[in-house]
């Protein structure tokens, strides 16, 4: 038997919608198989993993907390990938955003009135954007591949953050733990009621709404789509591919930076070496699962948030590693990419002698 692809005359509208669902379904089936191979009851394992996180109010809150940074970063990356700009260093931009935004509360701890929050958010976005400007500059000025540079800068950013947190920004009263002073007053993001959901979730929703309009209705969104799918047609239209690289990297870097400061000023309340559990990388999956469409990213962010929570729950309830979550995320991305083939092609199996 041999697998053969046949090109469709037009993109299949049906498959555009069906493919992510198919991918999720296949991931669940794969998960069930893996769980039963591990000697677990697959139904119970899947329940713990994927359903329990949405059944309780506290876990729903936690889900929003996890999904907010994923969506915030994911929408930026969705625009990037649409334009064929491969920013895979969002994790580094997130780290830089966290550092920039934390500068105020750490260096000027008494400044706790409302403006500090606005400034912190602005600085966070600025930090991420500036850090993303490095690969943008290298790509447009020297033609250096942004995939490798943006990724290398992740390691550098984490080392820089590590130096600050263990060095000059360490809390002097913190028993030598590598963490900064606790943020106070408006240095912390406001939350919904007394719960854990913070302003970051609101910002993520705004980003989704704005980018949805930009991508579907505006000339800028049109430009992104043209440059990404047919770069020569983009030049022919009069769009500058260099400006597009700048736009995409600054936008996605800024959003990643915003997510970074929101993590610090939201759930943790202080700066520590582990700022994010890999949100910047998981957001790549979010962007693809969301079909590189802002609204899709919102849905995908929630789903990936579930996998994080499910991983934690599975560790407690089932006694398996919480790292299985990352495996599921990887498998999911594979299935999405595989299912997307169905949008452009029909798949047929041929028996060898007819080939």
């Amino acid at each position, binding site marked *: 038997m041999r*697998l*053969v*692809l*046949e*090109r469709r005359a037009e993109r299949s509208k049906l498959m555009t919608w069906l493919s992510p669902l198919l991918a999720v379904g296949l991931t669940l089936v794969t998960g069930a198989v893996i769980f039963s191979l591990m000697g677990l009851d697959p139904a119970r394992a899947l329940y713990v993993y994927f359903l329990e996180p949405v059944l309780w109010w506290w876990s729903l809150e936690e889900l929003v907390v996890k999904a907010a940074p994923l969506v915030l970063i994911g929408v930026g990356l969705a625009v990037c*990938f649409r334009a064929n700009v*491969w920013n*895979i260093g969002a994790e580094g931009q997130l780290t830089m955003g966290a550092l920039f935004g934390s500068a105020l509360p750490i260096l000027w701890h008494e400044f706790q009135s409302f403006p500090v929050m606005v400034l912190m958010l602005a600085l966070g976005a600025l930090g991420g954007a500036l850090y993303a400007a490095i690969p943008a500059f*290298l790509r447009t000025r*020297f*033609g*250096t*591949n942004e*995939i*490798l*540079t943006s*990724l*290398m*800068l992740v*390691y*550098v950013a984490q*080392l*820089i953050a*590590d*130096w600050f947190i263990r*060095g000059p920004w360490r809390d002097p009263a913190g028993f030598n733990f590598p963490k900064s002073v606790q943020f106070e007053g408006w240095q912390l993001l406001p939350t919904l009621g007394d719960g854990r959901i913070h302003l970051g979730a609101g910002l993520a929703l705004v980003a989704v709404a704005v980018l949805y309009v930009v991508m579907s209705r505006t000339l800028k969104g049109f430009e992104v789509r043209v440059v990404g799918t047919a770069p020569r047609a983009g030049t022919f239209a009069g769009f500058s591919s260099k400006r597009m690289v700048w736009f995409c990297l600054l936008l996605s870097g800024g959003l990643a930076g915003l997510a970074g400061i929101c993590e610090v000023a939201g759930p943790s309340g202080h700066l520590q070496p582990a700022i994010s559990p890999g949100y910047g*990388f*998981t957001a*790549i*999956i979010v962007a*693809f699962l969301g079909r590189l469409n802002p609204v899709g990213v919102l849905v995908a962010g929630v789903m990936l948030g579930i996998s994080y929570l499910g991983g934690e729950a599975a560790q407690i309830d089932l006694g398996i*590693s919480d*790292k*299985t*979550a*990352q*495996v*599921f*995320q*990887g*498998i999911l*991305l*594979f299935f999405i*990419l*595989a299912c*997307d*083939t169905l949008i*452009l*092609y029909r*798949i047929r199996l041929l028996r060898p002698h007819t080939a």
Partner: protein
Amino acid sequence: MTGLEAVILTIITASTPLLLAAIGELVVERSGVLNLGVEGMMVVGAVCGFATAYTTGSPYLGVLAGVLAGMGMALLFGFLTQSLATNQVASGLALTLLGLGLSGVIGESFTGLPGVKLQPLDIPVLSDIPFLGPILFGQDVLVYTSFALVFAVSYTMSRTRTGLVIRAVGDNHHSAHALGYNVIAVRYGCILFGGACAGLAGAYLSLAYTPQWVENMTSGRGWIALALVVFATWIARRVLIGAYLFGAVWIMGLYAQALGIGIPSQVLSSFPYLITILVLVLISRNRTLTKINTPACIGQTFVPDR
């Protein structure tokens, strides 16, 4: 052991994994495929190598397991990009993310356990020669393998029909198809070779470089290997030079830390990454050099007409 001798020995150990991974990726890219999953294949190779060596007590079985694991990961990538014609960049990223996750799960129960070290071959008499002996004749089998691979790839690419076909497929897959070559099969082969090399590189890390399992122990080496291929402008012998330059930079950082000169350790640790960026910039500034050698079809999907 003199100081210089020790430095050279550590440079060799630091360079070998980069060299192994890069030489494999070079063949993959020559065939017109960009596999960004080197890091993922490498880290799975590392954990499988360690786990097998620990369980069986044989480092050589560990090496074999590493190679097979790398090839298994590569097969996944091949199926997606060749049989299903998916975007190579995205699929490579997926491979890396999956590999990092998978290695974390597999490696969890092996963290902190004592490893099984791949012993140097210690060729009798010759390895007792002062200075040169340990450097030239006292290495483990993977170091020699890495050199052998460079020469084998270099010879294959420039002198044999196999190499000619690989280059042809990477230069113009439509022409190669029209002449009756099975583009997808050639690429599958190259991808599997790349996976084997990345797995070997990973096994080297967990069996020779630091014989233990630490999560994410590849720490970006797979990505640096990708950069090395660009640096080498797809020429095998230049990969050798590049890998050893990077190995030297890596080791210099470690030595500087050990000597306790007043530079923060984080600055020194960031050197390999910063140097990678610098090197990429320098090489990409020279447009003609990179463009002429770049396989013309790199990263493009190919679906034959029926």
